[in-house]
């Protein structure tokens, strides 16, 4: 899914940028989940300002890529769905940050 996969031999920092994360809404979701341990759907919706449908759609893409995982846990003896970054997602986000910084550092 990342740009580097599609471009094959191209190792320029821009080509390394993960396009799945690069989309602004998904970048915001990833950033929020990166700075907290986990959050539920409602909290993310309020923080990102995304609509229910939008957030749901982006979540599905990130989940399909293995970047986020859904954790079922009990809060006050009631089942609750929490979302968190997977190790793969965390690594991908860190790599994305490095790539972006490198892109701008390389600018004349």
């Amino acid at each position, binding site marked *: 899914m990342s740009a580097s996969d599609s471009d094959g031999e191209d190792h320029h920092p821009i080509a390394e940028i993960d396009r799945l994360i690069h989309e602004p809404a998904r970048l915001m979701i990833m*950033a929020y989940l990166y*700075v*907290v*341990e986990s*959050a*539920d759907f*409602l*909290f993310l919706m*309020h923080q990102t300002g995304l609509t229910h449908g939008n957030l749901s759609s982006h979540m599905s893409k990130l989940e399909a890529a293995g970047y986020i995982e859904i954790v079922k846990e009990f809060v006050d003896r009631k089942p609750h769905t929490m979302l968190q970054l997977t190790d793969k997602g965390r690594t991908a986000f860190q790599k994305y940050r490095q790539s972006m910084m490198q892109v701008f550092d390389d600018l004349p």
Partner: protein
Amino acid sequence: MTQNINLKELEKKAWTSTFEDGIMDIGIGLILVVTTICQTFDDARFYLYPLFIVPVLFITAAKKYITTPRMGLVKFSRARNRKSYVLYLIMTASIVILLILTVKGLFQQLPMTPVIVGAIVFFIPCSIAYFLNFDRMYIYAILFTLSFALNEITIANTGVIASGAYAWLISGIIMIVIGVVYLVRFLKKYPLPVKGVYNDSTN
């Protein structure tokens, strides 16, 4: 570097959003109201001390039944939790120092007792403000200290302990009013979602 700052800001924004409900303000205001009651009925203060459980119960219940259903649930990072533990440690140490000084009767022997207690009264809310990024608490720290000073001056002038209680009540009411304003804004900003809707996509 810019990325680091932005992520820190993002985490801070998520964290401080948990204070948008005004529940803490109301809870702390209630603590001052209970302090007023205890000081007004000084002879029965030991029977009234259990009233301090009321603000604690209020904060716990309000967060559970008002804030979380509207705002959602979040678990913050270990770094954020570490800050909270440091705060608990400072608060516990301050309370233990105050208790030791009171029980041992050392307050009577110290020459600058009101200044020392006043400094602790100022220091505790400032620590809360700093470690919890709860900026309104800096203003409350000033209110606390002013109330303490007013209380001490009134008692010194009248010789009656109950007479200074109004100082705590004024600050308590100010905090409760601020908290209610925040709470009303919070309720408007975060209406109760339709049950089950927001979990559909994540299930």
